[in-house]
């Protein structure tokens, strides 16, 4: 009997329980960024748009338009402004319409 069979018997089943239960390895996956609207100024938003290599970010007046579908989770926006950009931690991103993936994030100083 091969060694890995014995190891498998001892440690149990390796197959993930997803989708019935969350998978513990999911938190280690790269995920698209999430933004802090209270810190995100128009100037900072322009810098983020400039560093994005896959054109996932665009600025529309006082709104940052984030296309989750175009994002490659490279982390450049997070490195550019760690105070304003964090990890969303989301991996369940499948959408039934392309428009569901386009998010509009209001910028700081936007008239309420």
């Amino acid at each position: 009997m091969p060694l890995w069979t014995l190891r498998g018997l001892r440690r149990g089943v390796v197959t993930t329980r997803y989708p019935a239960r969350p998978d513990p390895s999911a938190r280690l996956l790269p995920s698209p960024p999430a933004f802090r609207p209270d810190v995100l100024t128009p100037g900072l938003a322009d810098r983020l748009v400039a560093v994005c290599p896959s054109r996932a970010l665009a600025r529309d007046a006082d709104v940052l338009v984030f296309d989750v579908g175009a994002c490659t989770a490279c982390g450049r926006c997070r490195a550019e402004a760690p105070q304003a950009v964090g990890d969303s931690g989301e991996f369940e991103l499948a959408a039934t319409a392309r428009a569901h993936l386009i998010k509009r994030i209001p910028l700081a100083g936007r008239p309420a």
Partner: protein
Amino acid sequence: MTGQGATELTVQENAEELRRTVTRLFGRSLHIRTLDTGSCAACEQEIRLLAAPHYDLHRLGFFFTPAPRHADLLMVTGPMVRAFENAARKTYDAIPDPKIVVATGACALGGVYQPDAFTRGGAGGTLPVDVWIPGCPPSPLALLQGLLVAVGRLAGKVKDLDFSLNGTPR
């Protein structure tokens, strides 16, 4: 106004009916044909991993097939290189109705490449895409969720996410 509201409800009811039909037809057994339209093969690696013991997609009733005629779902990767467009259409036509098209990865979603002389810059312009799976590459878990959304066994949740943080970034 009332008439418009009634129409909207009918559309919603139709969508619900369609979702039920898709789940009835494909919920327990679905055959997948993958189509590479110029991808870097990272998506293919992740798709291949779905069959590995850790993810084991066969337990959920999904199978890969090399023949479009045996497939129910077309999984498209890559930015749709123009040289491949004709083959992509032929593959789509060869799949028997009803069929589902899943665009996989940032390229197929139109993220990485802009339309130019060589690529269409995404699968959406050539094929009628039903489900979009973001990621570069999407992890096998993300692909699994996308497939379950495609057959109506899970509801997509990205629609309700706003990608804004309220405290300090994680």
